[in-house]
């Protein structure tokens, strides 16, 4: 049968998520320059990972399920990464003379 987690483990994950939320809010009030984005998204991603692994039981799921989950985020990264690369590189090349 599938793994049955203890109530304690669920509560522990919940409390961890609460602490991480508090940290996220606190850090927003401190100016860390470019690091603010990194910290905020880093903490959010860690929280999401905890929810996926423990609340959604992916840690105790089959390899195939884990692969499907990873694939989902891989395609999201592709969407965000390639689109930003497109917009980000638009200024790099001038228009051909005929179109200027």
């Amino acid at each position, binding site marked *: 049968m599938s793994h049955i987690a203890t109530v304690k483990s669920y509560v522990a994950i919940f409390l961890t998520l609460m602490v991480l939320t508090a940290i996220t809010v606190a850090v*927003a009030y401190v100016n860390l320059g470019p690091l603010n984005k990194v910290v905020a998204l880093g903490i959010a991603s860690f929280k999401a990972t905890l929810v996926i692994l423990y609340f959604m039981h992916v840690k105790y799921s089959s390899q195939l399920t884990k692969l499907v989950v990873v694939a989902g985020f891989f395609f999201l990264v592709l969407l965000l990464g390639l689109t930003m690369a497109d917009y980000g590189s638009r200024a790099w090349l001038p228009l051909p003379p005929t179109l200027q």
Partner: protein
Amino acid sequence: MSETVVDADLHGHVGAHAAQHPALQHHFESLSQQKEASTLGMWTFLLTEILFFGGLFMAYLLYRTWYHDAFVAASSSIALSWGAFNTVVLIASSLTMALAVRSAQTDQRTALVGWLVATMVLGTVFLGVKVIEYADKFAHHHVPGPDFVWESEHPAPAGAGDEHLSHAETAATRDPALQYHTQIFFSLYFTMTGLHALHMIIGIGIMLVITYMAWQGRFDAHYYTPVEMSGLYWHFVDIVWIYLFPLLYLIDRS
């Protein structure tokens, strides 16, 4: 529900095998195989949802990069306390959902129904707070459209001074570009939280059905797949909010 080996079988197949659980569909060999198929199916659906929200996150990423100052100003105008409260409420609802699944796994029907109800209550609280937040936006003319007006922060209470108004706000209260760029922020705010709220409403609807099924005694320690699959959906909606909260409410409050 104990598994007994019976000699007389129900479908004309030869041989003694464990009595079939009524929830086992004929095209699956076992409940665990059936559950694995359901899990893969639900995760595949969640992948489409990740990309669905992903498109909006992409739009957000782009406009925040282009109009950073306007986004900081607009984000700082949103009441942080409601957003933080809602984050706690939603993560708590994920806890109650996980405990509901656990109750199903351990054959505790009353606890299962109780935790499902708790999950729905917390979800409804979340939606109630969103109504309050949206009403606040309407009152301040922060809803994109013909009535949209971006002013710098509300006038400070007497004696607070101007130090809380950023340079950008005091210098450009009615700057047309700022009007346009903050309106883009609020367009994304309403679209993303609105789509999220729609998913919450659907989630509560699903939970109502599951709760009814649980109350009827349709689940036991061997078969609780619908509870777990609904849980996956619910946790996904929670994860979307885990990202929405810092991106919309906490761009820069320093």
